[in-house]
């Protein structure tokens, strides 16, 4: 058994949140630079502005986007770890609270009915997996809602199969149109249940741009989705163009013999995701 103070998790969440809000992942940046070479006119202007914005945020330590997001925190907790101190959820929320204050990040979390802002961007959306080992792996994903709002969940029938999955992805992107800040990243969950499928889709967004699924049939679905989405011609910011999506990542899980859940989680052009292991 290894003892880890939850104060270290607070510190870790705080530093990851600060970094994530100001940093585009390197693979995302590379994908945008490649996309720029394929566009002209207003679409090229949009990508130039996005690339300049990335440089400003990095240089001046400013949030890339004013939507510094809902704090999504994924923790892989080793089963040989004993957490001591403030309860884990409170420790995570405290890390979010500190980061959003120190970083001059926007506080975007509110009551769903009264719309009263919680004032400190808490609570974080916390997912915990118990895994083998004696470390705590923390992933921080600030999720903006321009793109989250455009995400969809389908409960397909098994007969709809592979083509149904691809059509669901294409339809989601078509309906989203110019609204989620394209060129988008698309996380797709296939299988599981109503709730777990959506989480699969979100986890798919964390894999890294241009990194296909190890299973050949899944990777083939990713490639076909990307080609058909880009054929829509929505383009950067919806101004029309060749690059509507930068990448499609699918994650799969066993499902029920009667169903085929498909979740499509849309991410704007900018993936902000930071990870750290507490040993």
């Amino acid at each position, binding site marked *: 058994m290894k003892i880890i103070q939850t104060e270290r998790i607070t510190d870790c969440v705080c530093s990851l949140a600060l970094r994530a809000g100001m940093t585009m992942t390197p693979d995302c940046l590379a994908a945008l630079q490649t996309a720029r070479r394929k566009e002209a*006119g*207003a679409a090229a*202007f*949009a990508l130039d*502005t*996005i690339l*300049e*914005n990335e440089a*400003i*945020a990095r240089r*001046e*330590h*400013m*949030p*890339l*986007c*004013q*939507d*510094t997001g809902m704090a999504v925190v994924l923790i892989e907790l080793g089963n040989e770890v004993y957490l001591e101190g403030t309860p884990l959820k409170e420790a995570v929320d405290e890390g979010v609270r500190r980061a959003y204050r120190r970083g*001059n*990040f*926007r*506080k*975007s979390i509110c009551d769903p009915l009264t*719309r009263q*802002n919680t*004032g400190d961007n808490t609570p974080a959306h916390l997912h915990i997996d118990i895994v083998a080992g004696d470390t705590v792996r923390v992933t921080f994903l600030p999720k903006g809602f*321009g793109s989250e*709002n455009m995400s969809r969940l389908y409960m397909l029938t098994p007969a709809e199969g592979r083509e149904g999955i691809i059509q669901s992805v294409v339809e989601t992107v078509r309906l989203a*149109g*110019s*609204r*989620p*800040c394209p060129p988008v990243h698309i996380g797709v969950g296939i299988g599981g249940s109503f709730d777990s499928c959506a989480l699969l889709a979100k986890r798919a967004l964390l894999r890294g741009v241009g990194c296909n699924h190890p299973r050949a049939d899944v990777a083939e679905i990713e490639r076909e989705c990307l080609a058909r989405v880009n054929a829509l*011609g929505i383009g950067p*910011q*919806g*101004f*029309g163009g060749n690059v509507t999506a930068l990448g499609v990542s699918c994650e799969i899980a066993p499902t029920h013999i009667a169903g085929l859940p498909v979740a499509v989680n849309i991410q*704007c*052009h*900018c993936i902000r995701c930071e990870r750290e292991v507490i040993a």
Partner: protein
Amino acid sequence: MKELTLPLSDEAIASLHAGDTCYLSGILYTARDCAHRRLFDLIDRGMPLPLPLQEATIYYAGPCPAPEGKACGSCGPTTSARMNAFAPRLFDLGLRGIIGKGEMNGAVIDAIRRNKKVYFAAIGGAGAFYGNAIKECECVAFPDLMSEAIFRLRVEHFPVVVAIDSSGKSIYQK
């Protein structure tokens, strides 16, 4: 790129075509979902508004808090379609222009054509970039809404694309 001064003149608006890129300089007012609901409440009750609607351009945005040494934090556009329900009535009341990101519905396009006004798209996600184009930022209404309050911004060299021009032509329609 065209250089435009705010408030926008009728002539300037008439000269714009969907797809044009231009720089804006002058005064903008931010408003998002909650601020619009409150503006409508004031209008319904015949109360004075915290912004001069007849000359105003509204920026659909909610800024990050200003860091030390800057007038404003990151402040890019939010999704305009959420304001589909509000924009037509404000255009009919004299609003000159709006700035946001993404397509807006037919009712907004009709209102823009009817009133000869304009919708500009700012580049979504470019929060730091636009934050730096804001030289003054002052909360003029609803401070309890935090970032969703109405802020009066003075911007310089603020780049936008004409998304829906005064003839109703939209960059989003092929």
